[in-house]
């Protein structure tokens, strides 16, 4: 049986729809979608199983944008990097346009990633071998620096980032293994679940904010019913924008693939770094969305590079898929290309098919659905959104404690929103803070607190210089921009 049989195609289609459902709902992640599928997959023919898995992975990350567009709740952490922007586009123009940008750039980003996966798996894997904890430290710092400067108000951005980092310190110390700030509560031993925080800061805070501001601006903000059809907005306007920004798209996709193929970095970091770079260059909302969406999907293909050629998973998703490979008697590594070349080639083809066909299809379905859904006034939807938030938060660990956490964090999110503190930076702190700490501690323990070791490897020096240039350059730019306003 091959990847191009009717069964495989159907499996990919079903996988794509299933993945999209999991991806778009908060609390149901791509990882969960794959792991629930595995007990079924082991009894299927490998080509059918992998078609479905590729369908799931291809759409699950992209579909995170559907939740972000419709209700400002990112379905997956990778979409959190540009949730504000994509939601704004959906509100101001039309959800179909917002999802059109995201789906088409996701598809093309994924395509770029796959092309690199095909062309340079073995060579790039050698680059991954250059990355020890020092290099990761500088890379994560680059993500943080760009994120802090990307905030409109640097002080508020820094504070929000700090709050995020503080929240992330709850739980086991990543280096020494001692519990921190858990107040003797076993529920806090593992830290605050990142997904619960996402749902609280975006979803619950948004609902609360809507209730809070409803009386103030009583004018129901009658939505202009879009004159053009969903298809025109999605493919027409979305496609034109993507074509106009093709250079940005290519840049972001290359960056995304690069970050994706570094084991442990993954699509979240890719989306943050490339959307932040676009923000730094004062990009429009559309440009930020485009660069984020293309790079996180490029990163999905990128994570397969070390997985296929070295057997090191790039993220949890590929870790599960690697397990599947072994289960089916396929061992990753250079051998894979020698012994199972036919299988690998078909895998690549399936990947391309999934990007080009499934993403636009699922995106279009999502856009059509949302366009209908959003005709209902927001205040009637609030209850349903709140319910979705509660169910999503409970679904992750099936732990009632997470529901209390949801309320507390939701209130914090509301306060921050009212005070003008960027939620994006807070989430950035939660994602990158622990990584920074972990690589810092690992490096320090490894070298017995020898700080010069951070500059002793070539790639580390290059990344350190990038950080320095970014800081100096951005401070200079801010100075330049501030001058004409205050002569």
């Amino acid at each position: 049986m091959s990847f191009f049989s009717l069964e495989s195609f159907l499996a990919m289609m079903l996988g794509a729809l299933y993945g999209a459902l999991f991806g778009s709902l908060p609390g149901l992640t791509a990882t969960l979608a794959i792991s629930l599928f595995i007990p079924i997959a082991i009894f299927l023919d490998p080509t059918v199983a992998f078609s479905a898995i590729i369908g799931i992975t291809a759409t699950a990350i992209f579909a995170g944008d559907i939740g972000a567009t419709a209700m400002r709740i990112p379905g997956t952490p990778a979409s959190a990097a540009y949730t504000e922007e994509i939601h704004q586009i959906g509100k101001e123009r039309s959800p179909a346009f917002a999802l059109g940008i995201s789906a088409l750039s996701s598809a093309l980003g994924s395509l770029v990633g796959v092309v690199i996966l095909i062309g340079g798996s073995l060579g790039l894997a050698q680059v991954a071998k250059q990355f020890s904890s020092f290099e990761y430290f500088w890379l994560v710092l680059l993500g943080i620096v760009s994120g802090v400067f990307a905030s409109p108000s640097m002080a508020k951005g820094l504070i929000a980032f700090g709050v995020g980092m503080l929240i992330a310190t709850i739980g086991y110390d990543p280096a020494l293994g001692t519990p921190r700030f858990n107040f003797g509560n076993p529920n806090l031993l593992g830290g605050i679940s990142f997904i619960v925080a996402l749902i609280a800061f975006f979803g619950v805070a948004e609902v609360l904010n809507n209730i809070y501001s409803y009386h103030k601006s009583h004018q129901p903000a009658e939505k202009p019913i879009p004159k053009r059809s969903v298809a025109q907005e999605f493919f027409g306007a979305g496609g034109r924008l993507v074509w106009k920004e093709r250079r940005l798209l290519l840049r972001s996709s290359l960056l995304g693939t690069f970050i994706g193929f570094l084991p442990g970095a993954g699509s979240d970091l890719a989306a943050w770094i490339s959307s932040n770079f676009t923000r730094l260059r004062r990009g429009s909302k559309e440009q930020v969305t485009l660069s984020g969406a293309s790079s996180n999907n490029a990163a999905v293909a990128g994570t397969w590079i070390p997985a296929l050629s070295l057997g090191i998973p790039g993220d949890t998703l590929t870790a599960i898929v690697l397990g599947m490979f072994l289960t089916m008697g396929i061992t990753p590594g250079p051998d894979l290309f020698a012994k199972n070349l036919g299988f690998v080639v078909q895998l690549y083809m399936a990947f391309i098919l999934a990007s080009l066909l499934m993403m636009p299809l699922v995106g279009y379905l999502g856009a059509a659905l949302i366009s209908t859904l959003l005709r209902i006034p927001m205040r009637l939807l609030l209850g349903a959104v709140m319910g979705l938030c509660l169910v999503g938060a409970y679904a992750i660990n099936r732990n009632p404690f997470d529901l209390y956490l949801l309320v507390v964090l939701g209130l914090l999110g509301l306060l921050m929103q009212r005070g003008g503190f960027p939620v994006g930076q807070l989430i950035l702190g939660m994602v990158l803070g622990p990584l920074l700490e972990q690589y810092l501690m690992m490096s320090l323990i490894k070298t017995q607190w020898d700080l010069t070791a951070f500059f002793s490897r070539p790639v580390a020096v290059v990344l350190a210089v990038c950080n320095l240039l970014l800081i100096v350059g951005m401070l200079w730019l801010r100075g330049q921009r501030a001058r004409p306003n205050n002569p």
Partner: protein
Amino acid sequence: MKRVFGILAVVAVLALTLVALGQRYPVRPITLIVPWSPGGSTDLTARSLAPVLGNILGQPVQVVNRTGGGGAIGHAAIAQGDPNGYTIGIITLEVVLPAWVNQTKINADAFTPIALLVLNPVAIVVRKDAPWKTAQEFIADIKANPGKYKASGTARAGSYDYARLGFLKKIGLKDAALPWVPAQGAAAALQELISGGINVAFVSIGEASALVKAGEARYLAFMTDRRFPAFPDVPTLKELGVDWTFASFLMAAAPKHTLPSVARQLDQAFAKAVQDPEFVRFMNNANLVINHLNFDQTKAFLAERNRAMAELADELK
């Protein structure tokens, strides 16, 4: 005399009820709690075992992931379940690790161990271009240069850290002779190994197998009792005169005070389930080594591991 008869009668009725209860078990679906997230080795084992177990017991077995707190939430859910046999779970090596036990207040005594299912033995892994060709050379080198080389595998005081500590203790060395660099798990440790950040990794055989097959890393020795079938050329530490074995384990367990008759019945069901050909095929492919022990052997195994780990706890201070 009447009183004696009365007491005897009550005891007899109680005993009969217990027998009857035991015979009627199970009459409704059983929940199998997995304390780790979907997709991991514990989850994969539970999910492939559940349907087989359900067929044998005649009632569906439902797998529930209770994650969080570094495994504390799920283990607590098993320990605090009703001891009626309808809440069981899979417990892991953590329950005998002193650091974990201190933090979570959950120890091996909180459970009725039923059957050991899987052992994931640990290997000593080095980079392909490492100076040591054999484990003996490696041991001699760290004895000659204590503190020069760095090891990793997981967090400080995590499972593989104990594998290293036990190994060091048996060759007569202390914690500082081969310092531990904390990593966020085996994949991160292996990335450090091949990028030159550390010199040796202590991870399970399966976790490193892809890298070894790709020629990027080598196994020096396994911490097993016997040679490992998939890699017959790699010696065990025992062969080299180092009396140390270490494996993370998956064990079926019920809450404490579960009726012995129910526990026995579950024991028999697990014994039959691990021989199911589909399950065996799946586990082989997934590089998970089925290592079944019955009720009594499992209890002894858990007690022995508990003692061995407690002895190592002093070394950490």
